[in-house]
C-alpha cells in the first residue's frame, strides 16, 4: 500500500519544517503538529498512512502517544505506519519496548531527509502495513 498522507509530530520548528519541506517536495501530503496532545488527537482523528513520532514532546511524550495508539487496548491504527524519529538517547529497555510497536526507530541526527524519503518509499513498497 503506497504511502500518501503523513503526520509529523515534532516540536522543533527547524526540524519540523525540514521534514515537511522535503516530504512535500517528494509529493506527500503532510500535516504537522508541534505538541504531543495535538499529535494524538490528529493521529486518531484522520487516517494517515504514516506518522513520524518524536519522543521528547511537550504535553505528551512520544512513548505515551504510542501506548495510546498501540497499547493494551489493541492497535487503534492498524493501517498506519509509525516511525519514531528522535535525538534523545533513550535507555535501552524503553527503546526496545518502542521498537516493538513501530516500523522504524531512527536517530534524527543520523537520518537526512533524503534517507528518510528512501525509508518511506521502502515502507510503501511492502505488501501491507503491519497488523
Amino acid at each position, binding site marked *: 500500500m503506497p504511502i500518501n498522507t503523513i503526520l509529523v509530530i515534532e516540536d*522543533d520548528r*527547524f*526540524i519540523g519544517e*525540514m*521534514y515537511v*519541506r*522535503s516530504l512535500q*517536495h517528494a509529493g506527500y501530503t503532510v500535516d504537522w503538529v508541534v505538541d504531543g496532545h495535538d499529535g494524538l488527537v490528529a493521529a486518531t482523528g484522520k487516517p494517515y498512512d504514516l506518522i513520524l513520532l518524536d519522543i*521528547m514532546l511537550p504535553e505528551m511524550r512520544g512513548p505515551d502517544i504510542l501506548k495510546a495508539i498501540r497499547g493494551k487496548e489493541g492497535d487503534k491504527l492498524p493501517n498506519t505506519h509509525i516511525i519514531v524519529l528522535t*535525538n*534523545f*538517547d533513550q*535507555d*535501552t*529497555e524503553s527503546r*526496545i519496548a518502542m*521498537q*516493538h510497536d513501530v516500523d522504524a526507530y531512527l*536517530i*534524527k*541526527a*543520523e537520518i*537526512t*531527509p*533524503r534517507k528518510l524519503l528512501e525509508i518511506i518509499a521502502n515502507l510503501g513498497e511492502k505488501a501491507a502495513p503491519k497488523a
Partner: protein
Amino acid sequence: MEVAPDKTAEVPIVAAVDERVPSIGEYWPRYKQQAAIITIIMQLIVASVVSMSLFAGGVPFDSPVSWITLLATFLVSVTLNLYLVNILLTPLRDMVSVLKSTRGESLSEPLANPNTPRYVRDGFTPVLQSIYDIASEKQKPNTAIAPDSLAPVLKAALHQTKMGVVIMDAHGVITFSNDAAPVSDDTSGGKKLNLLFEQEDTFMNWLQNCHDNAVHAEHTWLRIADRIVGDENRRIFNVTANYEKGSAAEVVLSCFDSTDIYQPEDNELDFIAFAAHELRGPITVIRGYLDVLDMEMEDSFAPDQKELMKRLIVSANRLTGYVNNILNTSKYDRRHLILRLGEESLTTIYDTINDDMALRASSQNRLLSVNIPADLPTIAADRSSLSEVISNLIDNAIKYSNEGGAIAVSAQVKDGFVEVAIADHGIGMPANVVGNLFHKFYRSHRSRETVAGTGIGLYICKAIVESHGGKIGVTSVEGEGSTFTFSVPIYATVADKLQANDNTNAGLISHGEGWIKNHAKYTG
C-alpha cells in the same frame, strides 16, 4: 644513681577494683618499705657486730677510732645494700607495674618497658614481655562481651549497620537479613533478594557452582543495583558473597551500599545523554538543511560550489559519528551499553553507511573500494553499532593514509565468523604502538602531532565487536599501511544461544567482560 626513693608513703589511688581483692598498688610501696627497713636493721646488726669485735680487740667504746669505724661501716653498708636491694627489686617492681596496669589500676611510676638496655642485656626482656602477653590475653574477657550476652548485641549491631547482611542456606533460601539488606517479601511468605545481577541467574549459578564444587568460596560483584534506573531510592551495592559448606550460615552476602560512589556517575551519564540530545538537535538541522539544499539546488551549483557542499556534508556527517562515539563510550564505561543482536546481512548494514562513506572518501581524495560478497551468510549483529564500527575504521584509514590512497573493505567467512577487513596503504605504524591501540584515549606519539582525534574510536570499536562475541585486531607495516580486521559470529552458529537465552546472549561473549547485556530480540 638512684637510691631507694622515699616515696613509700604515696599509695596510688585505686579505682574500680573489687573491694574484696586487695589492689596490687598497695603491695609494692609496702614491700619496698619493708625491704628498706630490713636492710637498715641488718646493717645495724652488722655495725654492732663490728663494734663488738673492736671492743674485744681492745679498742675502747669512747675511742674516736671506734666511732669513726662504726659510723663508716654503717653508712657504707647501708648505702651499698640499699643500692643492691633497689637493683634486685627493680624487675619485681616492673612486673608489678605491668600487672597493675593490666588490671586498670593507676600507675604512680612509669609503665615498665621490657626493652630497656638493662633488660635486653640481662635477658629479662622476654620475661616481662611474656607477662605483658599473658596479662593482655587474660584481659580480653574483661572488655569483650560474654558469649551469652553476645546475641542481643549482635542483633543491635546488625540493625544499626548500613551494610546489608543476608544469610542463606545451601539452597539460596534466605534465613536472615538485616534492615539494610536489599530484600523484600515474596509471594510465598519468604524473602527474596532484590539485586539486579547482570543475568537474572548469575547469583544462583554461582551458588550452585559452590554447592557442587567448593568448600569455601568468595565472590564480589561490583555495582549491583536493587532497582532499575529511575526508581526512587535506588541503591547500588558492591556485593560480596561468602560460601562455607556445612556452616550454620552457609551463604553470607555482604552488601556494601556504594550508592554515593556510583550515583554521581549515573547522573553524569544522564548529563551525557542530555548533552548528546542537545548536540544532535543542531547537527540534525545542519545535516538536514544541507541535504535539502543539495537536493533542491544541485543543478544550479557551480562545480567548485558543489565541492564546498560536499565538504560541508561530510563534516556534518562526521560530527554525528563523534557524538555517537562519546555516547557509546560513556555507556560502555558505566556498563550501560546494551546491544540487541538480530539476524543481519553485512551488505544491508554497509548500505546504511555506504553513501556517507563514499562521500567521505571522495571528498578527501581516497579511493574506497568495497567488496562484500553477496553470498555471505547472515550475522548476529546490532545494525547501528556495527555500522559505527565500520565507519570508525574507515574514518581511521582515511586519517592515516595519504591523498589518493586506496582503502579496501572486504569480507570473508572464517571459522564460523564473518571477518571484515579494512586495509589502507597509509603510514602504518611500528609494532610497539599496536599493543596500545585499542586503549581508551591512546594516541601514538606521532599521531598526536599530525592527526586530530580523541582516541576513543578504536576503543569503542573493540567494545562493540567484543560484545558481539567477536574479535578485533590489526596488522601493520610501518610505511606500508595497516589492515584492521574484526569478526562477528555467523547467525546460524549462535541462533540457538540467542533464542534459548531469553533474549540475552551472554553465552556469546568469550572474553572476561561478561557484564555486557546483549538483548537478542529476533524480529525477522
